């Protein structure tokens, strides 16, 4: 019942292919699937694995993420014994710190690792969407007597963007080597930038690696450890579909994948709900001129026009005569009369004026930035 795993979420990486979507937010704070942020899925995985002590390493542009997490009480992570700990970047009189890689970030937050009491630590980057039971990862880690367990997937979804890190895993499940951004991967196993090991071991490894001048966890430290063969490094294959949100197109396609009921049923399993920050909106309202098919619609929406193959976040308004197709409309978007939007991603508080038409090809969705009126 008491969890033996502390969680640590690294929200630092800037993924340039996400362009305007991360201009004012970290990847972890990306709005997803009508009412969530990307980090909600990681937090829910942790909660449903019984984890109560979770640190979130912040970097630049972390205001929206901090605002989203708040006191953590939507996730029951607001306790005084445990809960969510925001680990902001170090800011001193001599300037603000941006970490030079995950290793640096871990090193700067060693005090969080040290004052935690759990035996194991699960560290994960924040650009992937997946469901997994970390407690099962830990159980397997113990069973196999591994020193380090790396999470990986064989889902080909995650290769959409053409970059990635791949694991060479032997038949016993032991990781033999790792390759970075190959043109054609030699192994089917995509490393998910998530790993589990004993907390004390991580503290030790980080300390030594930083002292040796390293900055990058996978590219430098992991590679060296794989080379040295001093530790047993195992792989854990995550079941189910995995999405890597590493470009505008991947963001778009991931959201669209959820129009498939099977996908939703798996990810939103009734016994493992995804919690998120609440807005207390009323139910969505359909008027007599509404027409909505194959779409996800969040509370607070008012629909008087046509919506097809789209995802509407909270409090989106679609006026009579307006048409929304193949699009993602973030919260408070307003589509005025007779406007048409096709294959677009509208960021928060966007207004589309009466009669405006904006149509993009489905494999090149257009992003309209926050607060814009077009």
């Amino acid at each position, binding site marked *: 019942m008491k969890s033996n795993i502390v969680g640590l979420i690294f929200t630092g990486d800037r993924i340039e292919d996400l362009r305007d979507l991360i201009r004012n937010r970290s990847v972890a704070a990306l709005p997803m699937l009508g009412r969530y942020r990307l980090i909600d899925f990681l937090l829910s995985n942790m909660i449903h694995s019984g984890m109560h002590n979770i640190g979130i390493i912040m970097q630049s542009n972390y205001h929206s993420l901090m605002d989203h997490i708040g006191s953590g009480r939507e996730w029951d992570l607001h306790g005084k014994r445990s809960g969510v700990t925001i680990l902001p970047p170090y800011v001193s009189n001599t300037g603000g710190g941006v970490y030079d890689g995950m290793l640096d970030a871990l090193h700067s937050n060693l005090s969080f690792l040290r004052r935690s009491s759990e035996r194991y630590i699960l560290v994960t980057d924040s650009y992937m969407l997946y469901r997994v039971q970390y407690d099962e990862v830990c159980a397997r880690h113990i069973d196999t007597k591994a020193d380090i367990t790396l999470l990986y997937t064989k889902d080909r979804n995650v290769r959409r963007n053409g970059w990635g890190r791949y694991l060479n895993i032997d038949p016993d499940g032991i990781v033999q080597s790792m390759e970075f951004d190959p043109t054609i991967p030699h192994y089917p196993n995509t490393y998910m930038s998530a790993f589990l090991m004993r907390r004390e071991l991580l503290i030790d490894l980080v300390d030594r690696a930083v002292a040796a001048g390293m900055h990058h966890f996978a590219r430098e430290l992991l590679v060296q450890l794989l080379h040295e063969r001093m530790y047993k490094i195992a792989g854990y294959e995550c079941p189910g579909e995995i999405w890597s949100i590493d470009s505008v197109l991947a963001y778009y396609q991931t959201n669209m994948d959820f129009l498939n*009921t099977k996908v939703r049923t798996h990810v939103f399993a009734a016994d493992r*709900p995804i919690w998120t920050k*609440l807005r207390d909106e009323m139910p969505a309202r*359909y008027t*007599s001129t509404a027409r909505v*098919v194959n779409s*996800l*619609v*969040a509370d607070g929406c008012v629909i008087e026009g046509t919506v097809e193959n789209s995802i509407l*976040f909270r409090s989106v308004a679609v006026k009579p005569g307006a048409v929304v197709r193949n699009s993602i409309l973030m919260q408070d978007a307003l589509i005025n009369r007779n406007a048409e939007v096709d294959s677009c991603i509208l960021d928060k508080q966007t207004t589309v004026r009466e009669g405006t038409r904006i149509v993009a090809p489905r494999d090149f969705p257009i992003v309209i930035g926050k607060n814009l009126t077009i």
Partner: protein
Amino acid sequence: MIRKKSCVAMLLAGGQGSRLGILTRNVAKPAVPFGGKYRIIDFPLSNCVNSGIDVVGVLTQYRPLELNAYIGSGAPWDLDLNSGGVYVLPPYHTGKTGEWYRGTANAIYQNLEFAKQYNPDYVLILSGDHIYKMDYSEMIDHHIQHKAAATIAVRQVPWEEASRFGIMNTDEDFNITEFEEKPANPKSNNASMGVYVFSFDKLYKYLEADEQDEASSNDFGNDVIPAMLSAGERMTAFTFKGYWKDVGTIESLWDANMDLLKQPPPMDLHDRKWRIYARNIGMPPHYAAKGAQVLDSLVTEGCQIEGAVTHSVLSANVTVEAGAQVIDSVIMPFARIGKGAVIRRAIIAEHAVIGANAVVGEEEGDIAVVGSNASLEAGTRVTAGQQVGE
């Protein structure tokens, strides 16, 4: 940890609410779902916090389990406080014996100690079966300005309906001169809403007296208000002009849901300055499938709609299968409407399952009801006004 509060609210969550039939067979009335994502109690609780009142006692003795679980720590309403918050107040033993609540006044009497902890100047007394948005702080200001012992919220009802209500007759300065319960020949159309503000010392005094009076039925309307009037206390009426609906019957509960579908709605739930808070159950956005058709309706997160929904309220996690039709109906959380079923002028309660091609309700006549967890076999017919339980 307990601080003085200017005003403490006491919410009469009531008894079984038998006029709601099978809808309250397993839950207390305030826990009945309303408007897609709310329960009735969300309205008075949200009104309280929006009015700046952060101590609420909920008086109940009937199946408080679900209500207790729903209220929980009070967090959804920002009522999880060290210095106040929301408390469920059941009857209790004081020594050798305990006694169940006899009437509304007795229930408050038994919990005067609760209010006393906060040393309040005023006590606001509310009912748990009304749908409305009201700024109680305006009523309390009115009470203070009029130096009243008690203030009673009234709303003007059509004259022809006045004889169905408790009617307050007032002078031109809002002072209540007479209270008549369901008068045959009403002298005014100011009907009591069951919302009272009392100065705490007066409430204490008259409830003590009411307890001593063996002839009393221990009810505010029947006993305490008349006693205060005849003792010459200053009693004022506060006129409320907004939307207000008693949802104590199947018909009125259905009506109030349908009111939300009017354009424009008589009560705006979109108003960001007066949100109605509710406990969230963590569902994804609702999904309207390829063949779905939804018109003039409210649809809540978690729904999966493959059929046709017209002029209806769908609560969280309702499934409407392909070919099913839902018309002029209220579907409560987690209900499932099977393929080809037709639901018309009906209330389908939580977790009910309607089999394929079943027909519930009719175009005319009373509202049909399918109770919570009930499971209708394929092809079943439920006629107008019929209630089908588990």
